[in-house]
């Protein structure tokens, strides 16, 4: 076999400028919005009111039992109709593959972040809530300023681990014909007949990023253990 790594070098501007930019945008958007939504779901799941906790539980368990690929696929086709129903429009609203992907990943990740944050909230001692209420904070203020910051801190390793998985999962957007990092590599590889080189390079980049991130997780784990 003759490798031609020139093909890779020439592809770098496209791979990173288009592919990786998309992958990172999707990862960061879904991670940040998913964390907010997931935290909200976690607080709901821990509510003593069944009317609040049960729907949140159903949402989380449903999304966690469907493969992501199916969620992406179904959501893309259903979204226009849901959009029309919400806004009361008479025709399906087409929001496009890009927005659909961001919304889907956000909704999907929220389910996983919810479970991490739920464990995080439960890891904070009950006395902390009592102390917050005792100085006159409302339940909501105590949650926001006292419980959640500690929950996030305690769960930082798990949260980062989940973001690494999300980062890898974003490559599934190929079903929507979107071009992420992997997709960009595949495109160029097919065009130039250099699939092997490009796939090797793409794999290497994924590996470097994920491995570095996992070292960060190790570091965070050690730090949280010391802090407690």
């Amino acid at each position: 076999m003759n490798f031609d790594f020139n093909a890779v070098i020439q592809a770098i501007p496209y791979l990173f400028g288009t592919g990786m930019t998309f992958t990172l945008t999707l990862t960061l958007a879904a991670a940040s919005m998913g964390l907010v939504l997931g935290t909200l779901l976690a607080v709901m799941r821990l509510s003593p009111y069944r009317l609040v906790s049960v729907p949140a539980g159903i949402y989380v368990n449903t999304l966690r039992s469907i493969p992501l690929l199916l969620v992406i696929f179904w959501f893309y086709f259903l979204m226009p109709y849901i959009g029309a129903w919400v806004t009361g429009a008479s025709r399906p609203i087409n929001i496009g593959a890009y927005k659909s992907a961001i919304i889907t990943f956000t909704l999907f990740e929220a389910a996983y972040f919810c479970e991490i944050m739920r464990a995080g909230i439960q890891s904070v001692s009950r006395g902390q809530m009592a102390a917050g209420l005792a100085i006159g904070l409302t339940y909501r203020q105590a949650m926001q300023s006292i419980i959640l910051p500690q929950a996030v801190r305690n769960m930082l390793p798990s949260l980062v681990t989940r973001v690494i998985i999300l980062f890898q999962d974003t490559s599934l957007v190929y079903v929507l014909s979107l071009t992420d990092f992997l997709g960009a590599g595949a495109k160029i590889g097919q065009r130039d007949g250099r699939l092997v080189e490009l796939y090797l390079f793409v794999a290497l980049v994924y590996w470097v990023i994920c491995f570095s991130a996992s070292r960060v997780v190790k570091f965070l784990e050690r730090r949280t253990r010391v802090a407690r």
Partner: protein
Amino acid sequence: MIEFNNVSKWYGEFQVLDNCTTHVSKGEVVVVCGPSGSGKSTLIKTVNALEPFEKGTVWVNGISVGDAKTDLPKLRARAGMVFQHFELFPHLSVTENLCMGQIKVLKRNPEEAKAKAHALLDRVGLLAHKDKHPGMLSGGQQQRVAIARALSMDPMVMLFDEPTSALDPEMVNEVLDVMSDLAREGMTMMVVTHEMGFARRVADRVIFMDGGKIIEDCATSEFFDNADARSERTRLFLSKILQH
């Protein structure tokens, strides 16, 4: 200042508080003691509504705690509470611990809150530690910060739930000293503690609880010096606790 009228509370079948009636007057220091599980914590936590109750009424400065219309955050802001395990906020600095309630609840501006925080830290002898996180302080220091945090809200009454029982023996006195000073300045206090020396020196009245009932409720000297008038259970408890 605080009035308990026939307060009862149940956990399912189990009755934690059984018809408790007593009061704490303005400027009075009342010590609550009794065996483990007798309902002491539950009783003082009804004052700031951390423990709801099923029957009876609790009045704090003319406000009914159990009333659904009562603004609980407002009530709690005026009743300082000190916990057995300090419950400082570990993700915040000592100063931030003292500013949280002032800013979020009393709406003081951050400068004013900080000045007040530092004055209080100075008062409990911990100004040098103002920028540290609670985890870096000893138990005794943490509990003094917790007292300062409660004081930052200008409370009209202070509630203490076994403030020294999680401390190493050599740190107990630094906390009791701060509490004694507070009492001398006329603070209304309700203190759950087994420190009988403190009770004898500082308390105006002593309440003894057992099985959710208030068994004794009398002046400090009467409680300690007139053993014959005490119930069997009280004498047994006192003999156990005063042994060491």
